[in-house]
């Protein structure tokens, strides 16, 4: 099986280890992975900030970079939701509409892709982890299971649920800098819930939430380690 990997701009800037780990896991599971060189960003920052024209311009580069029939795999529920949920609206009535719908149809968040194809990651680990439901994964993709299933499949790792898993961590893209105080309050609550499980690590399918929760935890003195799920699966 073949797949194209969307690295995501956030992973490019903040954590290349995340997209590399994603590639490693997919390859170990027998997927032939290509990483299109001409990819940039899915366009979500512009779209959700109310600048659809600018977002479309950036999203067009994604349509071009990920042309073809192979599935597109993204280590982010939020970027996957942008393509699957946002592109149909962003490109409605545009010349690229058909291409956008096609890309939306074959794009999957990383753990969804694993689950859909029953891929075995053969991952091992130790200790305990708690899982954060990122909102776009949970509500826009309607996915509550695939991330947890991937974690449960890691031999030696115990999954512990935290309180209020379905409540937003307060990141919200530009919201985090437009209303930093509200965002910070929610991030702190999330960090405290995660820490209260006593789990060794907080794991999520979205780097953005983790960056925010970890940063807020550190600022408010909550002891918390975080990792992206791909890093856990890559071992």
């Amino acid at each position, binding site marked *: 099986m073949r797949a194209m990997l969307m690295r995501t701009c956030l992973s490019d800037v903040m*954590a290349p280890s995340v997209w590399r780990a994603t590639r490693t896991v997919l390859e170990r599971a027998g997927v032939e992975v290509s990483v299109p060189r001409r990819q940039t960003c899915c366009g979500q920052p512009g779209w959700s900030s*109310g600048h659809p024209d600018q977002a479309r311009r950036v999203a*067009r580069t994604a349509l071009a*970079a990920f042309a073809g029939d192979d599935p597109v795999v993204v280590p982010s529920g939020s970027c996957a939701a942008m393509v699957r949920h946002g592109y149909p609206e962003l490109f409605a009535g545009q010349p690229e509409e058909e291409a956008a719908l096609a890309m939306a149809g074959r794009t999957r968040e990383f753990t969804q892709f694993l689950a859909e194809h029953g891929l075995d990651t053969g991952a091992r680990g130790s200790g305990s982890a708690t899982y954060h439901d990122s909102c776009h994964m949970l509500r826009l993709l309607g996915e509550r299971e695939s991330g947890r299933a991937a974690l449960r499949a890691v031999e030696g790792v115990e999954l512990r649920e935290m309180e209020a898993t379905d409540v937003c961590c307060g990141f919200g893209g530009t919201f985090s800098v437009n209303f930093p105080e509200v965002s910070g309050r929610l991030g702190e609550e999330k960090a405290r819930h995660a820490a209260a499980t006593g789990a060794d690590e907080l794991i999520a399918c979205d780097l953005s939430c983790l960056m925010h929760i970890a940063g807020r935890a550190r600022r408010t003195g909550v002891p918390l380690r975080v990792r992206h799920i791909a890093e856990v699966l890559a071992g």
Partner: protein
Amino acid sequence: MSGRRPVVYSDTTAPLRERTREALADDALAANLRAAGASWGAARTRISAENPFAEMRARAREIRRGDIGDLPELLARLEERVTAAGGVVTRAADADAACRYITDLAAARGATLVAKSKSMATEEIKLNEAIEESGLRVVETDLGEWILQLAGQHPSHIVAPAVHLNKEQVRQVLMAESGWELPTDREALVAHARTRLREVFASADIGISGVNFGVAETGTICVVENEGNARLVTALPRIHVAVMGMERVVRDWDEAAHILQILPMAAIGDDAAGYVNLITGPRAPGEADGPEELHLVILDGGRSALLGTDLEEALDCIRCGACLYSCPMWRSVGGQAYGSPYSGPIGSVLTPLLEGMEGERSSELPFMSSLCGSCHDACPVGIPLHDLLVRVRARVTTTAHRRDRARFRLWSRAWSNPAAYRLSVAMARIGLRLAGRRGWARRLPGPGAEWTSQRDLPTRWPPTPPR
């Protein structure tokens, strides 16, 4: 009366972010909101488990989509049937027209005292101000609304207007009003309020209510409530004026029955509301009670402009307040910080639409959301509020947004070019390395400053674990 009445409150002069900061610093508020959100959440979870909520929601969505699709026709039918039942219907294009109709009516009938039951539409048009300006006295008879009227505050929730206050705060307000020392238990405070309000019901010339929905089939006005005060307001005074947003109409009793069922489930997590008042026309000859005159004011106030647009679904709203309780932002800062009668997710969509996109203050609202989508999950009529928020954001025309657009133009120019993208990523990574000390940045310059105002930034990934 001059000019259009703004939807946002006149004291909303400070930017929204400043108002959220004030709200976050209020510990009593945080406790009150936490308690309210938790009790709603528990009731809502219970009721959703006991009922086929998902199917009911799908049906409710279908009903509301259909009603709004046929709105002009349904309104015409409602008007015809209300008139046939002996009521007087008036269409008000805007807040001023609606207020003027009511104050003129009051003057023509020589009224001096107006009793009101809870109504968001009258909050929206700032009817109390208009009535007081015309020299009459108006008293809110919903307990929460009355407390707010006494305290000089705005409602913080569509259904539970004083939910941001606790019992002790309420007691202080009521003691200040009466000059009496009041006991601390809830029952006694409610009993006290009842006594104070009874004289109002007895002597009011006009009763003003809102409308949960009008049933086009029979010209019936439904007013749903939990205290019984709306029953008195609509029945005892000589004249009943009902103020209705033009979208609050349903086709027939089949639809009405379904909405009547799902509304309290969503709003309070109960399968029935305390009181459902069904009003068809004024008192008919031979009837024992009811007002002599019934006036129905149908308010446009910017609504018709949404018909046929990709924002039309905002009109499906049945004002249950569930999206407010479900919203992490609303639960953090409360409704008062929004500065609009409509707070929470639906308020952030509706306020700029009704007020006009040029409103600096109201146009900040759609940005105070992380687009987490819990509002959509909570909404009994399935309005995709997170999508509407994005669409409204795109229409905002404030100076801040124009500046933002200029920034995003630069962004799109760079990031639509793979080479420029790679260059900017490389530069950002160098910047990160320079900013980090042992894997973390505590204070960033420029655009990163707001990030580090609240959090550290991990400059290595996975972040260096805490010591």
